[in-house]
């Protein structure tokens, strides 16, 4: 009996129960209010629907709290009790081993496939199911009681002059505020989780060694000098900006100053397609077309240089994946970030400035170069900063096309690795959360978050200052 309860699909059941309790409470409340409306001579303060919502609030909010605490702590509770009841021989297992053992117990319990395994495992699985059944049954009973009490309490407060609407609206406003607060919670979650895991990491490896060390060998040797990763990240972002900055900027100037409205209406959305293509597609393109192209081009350059006697050995590394390939493709991806924002700020430059320049006899290009662009410069710089931050944080293109060797090399045809590549390769292995490898990924994440945040904050500041100037 308890074991069957342990196999209940609690997630679906809880959602269904909350929906049932909520709507039942709503109808009960509304019916009662309607009856009040018939019996009273005067006017009711709130319409019957609001009385319904009021009772529903009392029925669902406490139930929601219980459901969330079940989701957060139910499994923990079951496991804690189970671990206490385990035979003494289990105390030899390390916490991680115990955790993975309990994971497999849970998996077996979910599929009822413990048959065939050894007897101890089967017994533990059955006990686990019993305990979970107990927790489930307790939760369900508590849920029912609380909901019934909520409905009863809500109902009892309904009167003809009861200000249900005001209370419901206050409650609703609180819900709205909490939704907006999720933004703060998310940021806090990011900062706390990154900081917490990073601090654990810095207990094992000193922060100074991490930031200034030049040897990165996290997978095999536990060497955590992240300087080559920072170098690779900035090298590739630099190459990307070499592509994106001129192309994006000139595109924006052409679109806002030269193109006809019809051409602009066509070209702008097409350019923005570049920003809508998933990055994994760019990565595949880099891997399939650009990287082999760069490799054969650099091999050709090597051969020609040797034939011409300019060099005695190959100048370029000519590796199958290269910083140049990743950087070029990333540059293409970043173009719309530069062009769209720059286009907006160039358009925001008042026409009077242009007219004044023309009146002085300047040509169109002189006007653009000496009047419009300087006037829009803060916005353009902000656009470039946002693009750099985008390039630094980009993952899939570099994972697929930039390579994995941590080195400091100015040769763009050699393969370099970046912060994001290392985070992915460290986190996709099968290692626990107490391993320095996994923790170092969080330290890298913290660096990445800080750097991109700094770029964004500076960019937003610049934009804000600029706006005040012309509005």
């Amino acid at each position, binding site marked *: 009996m308890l074991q069957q309860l342990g196999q209940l699909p609690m997630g679906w059941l809880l959602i269904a129960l909350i929906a049932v309790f909520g709507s039942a409470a709503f109808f009960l409340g509304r019916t009662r209010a309607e009856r009040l409306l018939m019996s009273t001579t005067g006017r009711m303060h709130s319409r019957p629907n609001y009385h319904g919502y009021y009772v529903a609030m009392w029925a669902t909010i406490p139930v929601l709290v219980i459901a969330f605490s079940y989701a957060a702590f139910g*499994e*923990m509770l079951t496991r804690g009790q189970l671990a206490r009841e385990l035979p003494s021989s289990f105390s030899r297992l390390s916490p991680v081993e115990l955790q993975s053992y309990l994971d497999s117990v849970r998996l077996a319990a979910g599929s009822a496939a413990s048959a065939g395994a050894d007897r101890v495992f089967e017994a533990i699985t059955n006990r686990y199911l019993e305990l979970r059944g107990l927790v489930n049954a307790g939760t369900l009973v508590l849920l029912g009681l609380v909901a019934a009490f909520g409905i009863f309490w809500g109902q009892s407060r309904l009167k003809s002059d009861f200000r249900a*609407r005001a209370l419901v*609206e206050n409650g*609703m*406003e609180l819900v*709205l*505020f909490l*939704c*907006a607060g*999720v*933004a*703060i919670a998310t*940021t806090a979650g*990011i900062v706390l*989780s*990154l900081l917490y895991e990073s601090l654990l990491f810095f207990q094992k490896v000193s922060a100074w060694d991490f930031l200034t060390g030049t040897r990165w060998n996290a997978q095999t040797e536990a060497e955590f000098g992240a300087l080559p990763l920072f170098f690779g990240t900035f090298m590739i972002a630099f190459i990307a900006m070499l592509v994106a900055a*001129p192309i994006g*900027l*000139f*595109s924006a100037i052409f679109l806002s*100053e*030269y193109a006809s409205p019809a051409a602009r209406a066509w*070209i702008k959305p*097409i*350019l923005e397609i*570049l920003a*809508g*293509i*998933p*990055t*994994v*597609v*760019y*990565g*595949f*393109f880099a*891997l*399939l077309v650009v990287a082999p192209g760069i490799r054969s081009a650099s091999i050709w350059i090597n051969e020609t240089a040797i034939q011409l006697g300019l060099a005695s050995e190959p100048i370029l590394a000519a590796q199958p994946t290269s910083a140049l390939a990743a950087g070029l493709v990333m540059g293409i991806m970043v*173009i719309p970030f530069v*062009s769209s924002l720059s286009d907006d700020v160039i358009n925001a430059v008042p026409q009077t400035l242009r007219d004044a320049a023309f009146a002085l006899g300047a*040509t*169109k*290009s002189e006007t*653009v170069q000496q009047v419009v662009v300087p006037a829009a410069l803060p916005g353009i710089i902000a656009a470039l900063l946002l693009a750099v931050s*985008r390039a630094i*944080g980009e*993952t*899939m293109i570099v*994972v*697929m096309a930039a390579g994995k060797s941590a080195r400091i090399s100015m040769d763009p045809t050699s393969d370099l690795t970046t912060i*994001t590549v290392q*985070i*992915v390769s460290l*986190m*996709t292995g099968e290692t626990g*959360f107490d391993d320095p490898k996994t923790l170092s990924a969080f330290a890298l994440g913290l660096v990445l*978050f800080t750097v*991109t*945040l700094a770029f964004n904050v500076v960019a937003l500041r610049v934009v804000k200052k600029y706006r005040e100037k012309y509005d």
Partner: protein
Amino acid sequence: MTDTARTQTSKTSAMKRLKKRRAADGRFRYYGLSAILIALGALAVLIFTIGSQALSAATYHVVNYDITLDPAVIAPEGAGRPEDIARNVEGFYGLVRDNLLETFPEAAEDRASRREVADFVTRLAVLPTAQMVAKQPELVGTRITLTAPLNDDLDLYLKGQGVRERKLDVGPIAAIKGEVDGGYRVTGAGAFDAVVAAKAVAAADLPADAPEPSVLLTAGPSTGRLTEISAGSGHLELLTGNIKDFARLQSKARLIVALESERTISDQQIAWTLALKDMGRIERVPRTTLLTNSDSTYPELAGGLAAIVGSLLTMLVTALVAMPIGILAAVYLEEFAPKNRVTEFIEVNINNLAAVPSIVFGLLGAALYINFLGMPRSAPLVGGLVLALMTFPVVIIASRAALKAVPPSVRSGALAVGASQMQTVFHHVVPLAAPGILTGAILGMARALGESAPLLLIGMVAFVGDVPRSPTDESTVMPVLIFSWSNNAERAWEPLTSAMIIVLLAFLLLMNGLVVFLRRKYERRW
């Protein structure tokens, strides 16, 4: 006007300078134009390369095998229940291999050739037929046509993408004589002129000590390897078919420069493939399995169904979490929030969250959902929650813009007839802003659909062979499947990956099309 001479010179120099300035003006315009053309050109190249690759993977070759479902093989004593038949892959595969050995008796001679013929079809390719027979047990004992995809390398060869070859015309063959070592001497005046010429061209690119390239001579279903070639004669070693065909039918020669030892397919396999094709047993059909099969280690069997369903489940979770929270938060910030420090702090947070690299959300998901809350790895539930955190700032920003666009007169009107603030917002403002809110939400979801980096960190990169049934099952998503396929070494995965990219882009196009439609239909200028 006293110094006319000086004015004259300054005029000419001014004219010169003006000419220079105008040229600079023209150049500047040209720079802008070329920047746009480079950007559009890059987009065109990207779409063209991937599109053309995908087009070649849109069809593939299947082979038909007429087999008799021998009850002794399909449903032997004690294993005749439907589920046994469905599991009896080995039995069905044996029938297919026997059929091939019957067609090509020469393959039965030694173990090496038996293995080569077995490569034609992978074992798992017979699974759909086995399941069909399990559902219709009355088929046992009858003769059916089993269709199975051709091996991926041979498929590429038939499409002209795998092993490079040159097709050459051969003149009429006048005489065929048997020789001692099992081969034949074929002669015909000037029959092999083109072959000799092509071999000379090919040899020029190869090092001097390279082995001879293969030359295959095909006539109808028969193929042989041609050696000792001169303009008028050659030594033919029959690989499959009947030697008489060469006298009867028009022959064609194929020059394959790549060495047999460096290819994934042998001359013998090419000969059999050409024979099957000549018999009309190989067909090129649309690859519907891309949408109906799940992932496989064999490219000819792999499909994206599990990833598509995984993507849909993930998007469902994302939509259910991000859309209500994002829209309600936008309503609060735009309609209710007092101007104070808390509100300002929330706004700063939202703007920054929209620019945080996606991989950081993956780290958050791994630490919070998996490590701290103990949620299952690789599950659409966790993936959807991670993507929801990433998407809701986008939804907030778009919804706020839509709410801002509703004119204040609407609010004043509602308030004037006695509606409360809450009623004004939810009965009047939000319905009017709904199309804008919805388009913003859809665009946010489209971004989430193409996202892969954070999902790699929560383990959605595992090989998933079964279609997930619930948000807590192990699963992967389309972009991650594309990433995994692009890591596979075999050549056949490349076009397949491109085809999967096109499927993903089709979904994105659909969502963006929906946005355009909603805008056209409901957009309102106040």
